[in-house]
């Protein structure tokens, strides 16, 4: 997991505070960002008739990232294939049992006016891919990229940040350490105890970037006259008390993380504390819950 840490307090009560984890990414998310850059539609050209050129890498990328393939069969019919289940159905201007329909002529005509369109054509009939999947096998994507380009997945382990961002924030990475000795209280900053290291999950990213909120009632649903219970049901909402619940107290970890705190706090100095996978500290060793720690 890569984390971007706020340096110095923001100006307002609700601003990010020194050490707050402003943003975090899983390793897979970073790989996927780079894969999207490599397979960006702007990297692929058009055929002479204005269709998107069906480059092998682009097709493989779309097959692995989209949910559906649509293939025009004639002036009215489109075959939709679910790429996850291989289930097929036919769509026309007449609604199906789910009230779905498509006017394929109008659809394709409109798409082709977008210079970033993703409409391909084979044997005179158009096809396209649509709806990004929820879960994407980034290693499979990178296998294709490595087959078709000179880019290597192993050289794309870090999120792309500008030098300005690296001066303004402390960028570092961490992972989950599982200790053979079950030492829950050790720091695992340099992992001399030979922990098993693994990537952090999306849930960890979510938790570490969560806010501190207070629930409030903002509105009510109106009961219908025929309802037995005429009590308006409240609509709850939240107010954000603190933008982030977790922080990295880098000033306390400077020695073990080999950081010079003065350099970190000097926004003229670019600090990139991201390490190779086997050198990454434990996420639980470097982050603290500000509520549990009594900070807020």
């Amino acid at each position, binding site marked *: 997991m890569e984390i971007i840490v706020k340096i110095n307090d923001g100006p*307002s009560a609700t601003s990010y505070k020194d050490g707050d984890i402003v943003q975090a990414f899983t390793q897979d998310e970073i790989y996927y960002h780079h894969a999207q850059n490599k*397979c960006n539609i702007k990297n692929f050209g058009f055929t002479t008739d204005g269709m998107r050129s069906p480059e092998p890498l682009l097709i493989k990328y779309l097959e692995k990232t989209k949910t559906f393939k649509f293939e025009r069969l004639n002036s009215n019919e489109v075959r*939709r294939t679910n790429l996850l289940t291989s289930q097929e159905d036919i769509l026309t201007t007449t609604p199906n049992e789910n009230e779905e329909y498509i006017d394929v002529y109008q659809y394709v005509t409109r798409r082709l006016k977008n210079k970033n*369109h993703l409409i391909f054509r084979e044997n005179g009939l158009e096809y396209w891919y649509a709806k990004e999947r929820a879960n994407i096998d980034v290693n499979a994507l990178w296998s294709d990229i490595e087959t*078709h380009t000179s880019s290597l997945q192993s050289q794309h382990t870090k999120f*792309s940040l500008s030098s300005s*961002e690296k001066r303004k924030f402390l960028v570092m990475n961490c992972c989950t350490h599982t200790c053979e000795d079950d030492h829950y209280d050790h720091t695992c900053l340099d992992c001399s105890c030979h922990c098993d290291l693994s990537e952090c999950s999306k849930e960890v990213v979510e938790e570490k970037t969560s806010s501190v909120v207070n629930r409030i009632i903002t*509105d009510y*649903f109106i009961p219908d006259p025929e309802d037995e219970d005429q009590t308006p049901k409240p609509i709850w909402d939240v107010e954000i008390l603190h933008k982030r619940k977790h922080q990295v107290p880098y000033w306390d970890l400077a020695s073990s993380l080999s950081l010079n705190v003065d350099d970190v706090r000097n926004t003229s100095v670019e600090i990139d504390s991201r390490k190779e996978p086997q050198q990454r500290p434990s996420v639980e060793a470097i982050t603290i819950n500000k509520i549990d720690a009594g900070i807020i």
Partner: protein
Amino acid sequence: MTTTTVSIGSRSNTVDTETPATSSGSGPLYTVTFGTTPTGIAVGHIGTVAAFSWDDEDTSNYVYVVTAISGDNITVKYLKDDNERGDASPYGLYSSGGSSGSPVQQVMVFKRSGITTAQASASAPSYTVTFGDAGPPADLHVGDVGGGADESSGCEFTYLVTAIDLSNKTVTMKYVHDDGGNGTTSPHGLQGADGNQLIIDFNRAFSTITLFEEMIDDSSPNYWGSSDDVVGELHADSNFTDNTVTFDQKQSLSSVTLSVYSDDRHDGTAESGALWKPTTASGHDVGIIRINIDNMIVEWLDISLHELDSTNTNKVIVFVGTNDDNIIRNNIFHDKDGDPGNNGCFCIHVLAAGASSDVISILNNIVYRWENTDSGEAASAINMNAWSGTVNIYNNTVYYVHSHANSQPGEGYKFNGNANQTANVKNNISHTVTANRLARRRAFVDTGTGTSNVDYNLSTSDSSSSYDAQGANSIIDVSNDNDSTPFFVSVAEGSEDLHLHASSPALEEGYDLGTTNSVNIDIDGIDRDATGVTWDMGADQTSVASTTTTNTSFIMFVE
């Protein structure tokens, strides 16, 4: 007032790394092919090679600029090398093998960088720099940042790109920062202290929307002045995955706009431009974009909640209360499913009252597939009920809002729940709003507490009659089975296209709402006033006057 535009995107400075396979030419121009197909390389990019020569038994770093691309053939022009060997082939493309072997091809690293030939500082801290040969990188954008490392002074400079003139091969760059305290009057970073022109590396100003927001909250921002109008433009480098971004301080900025670069805007359908697709939950009721500042515009976004079905994310735009002159326009929000938790799902939702003189405008947006599968919770697309100021809800399209609850509604639009609210609701479409009970199927909910001006809207026959579109010029009970008259171009899952179909009853049934806040610009960027016909209802303007007088058909299609 100064407008400062900054780019937001994830692409890196390094574009590609390739090893030449063949080369032709005799310098300074060489046409090169590579072992694999290059990706992402554009005219104006810089390619560097570290090549060894037996002649002087040393490695020299060669710098080339891309001057032309034709298929897999890339023409590069020699600019310089450390050892001043010059442009004679083959050095720089491959190392010389000396007397003992064949030349060895060397890796060429392509970057979004450039070398200027001159700079003019007439309006310092802005400098207009000139690029030779092919000009600046073809994929450089206003709002990107350029960094120049002046090795002779040991100092790194940062500039913000404020204008690009490709015809004159010039870029205007505003000094932002240097780490040596040299200040704005120095040309360093563009030209070294030793007089040599430097390589400038270009990047996006911000990698994520969250980092953009963090600087909006900064009292000492790098890129803009304290009272500027700031525009953050998303670029479709990769998906934006920020799970929640809270705009709750803007210091003394005049306004904040979160937009999309013009070439990366959606075409009125999902996933056709820059895509914001969070991969983790926002927190229940927090929202993906949370706004608590005045003078903010959110436009041209495509936000998909498809990956969040099993999470607690239940809102896209949340107005917290400080929201005067907030405008939400030309966005597509879609694909909320699942059970986000015990408060239902609301796409655009105002929480607090605000001041009676405050105005929020919701214009030309599309919301579709907004579903809550919980048996006891609501699904609501645009809910501005609690606002105490003026709310303008104009020309939006809501399609398929579905609550699975008996006791809670599926709502298209809800407003006028505050005695001080004035709700202006016109030209909107609510199509297919459903819940388990008919009484809960509500296209337009006018709570009736304040003042409402509601007309020229359209609701489909699924809506409870009490919540049909109100007003003498509204259209109600439109069939939503689509058997005889398709309403939209497509409602097939995955290829939804909610542009109006040629047979749609919403064509030319709207009202001319003028040009305030660009309400006349539809979901594709079409100016309704330029079409020469009555406005259509909904976010899309399909109708346009025929320019051929002999044509019997009055309607043709644009976009």
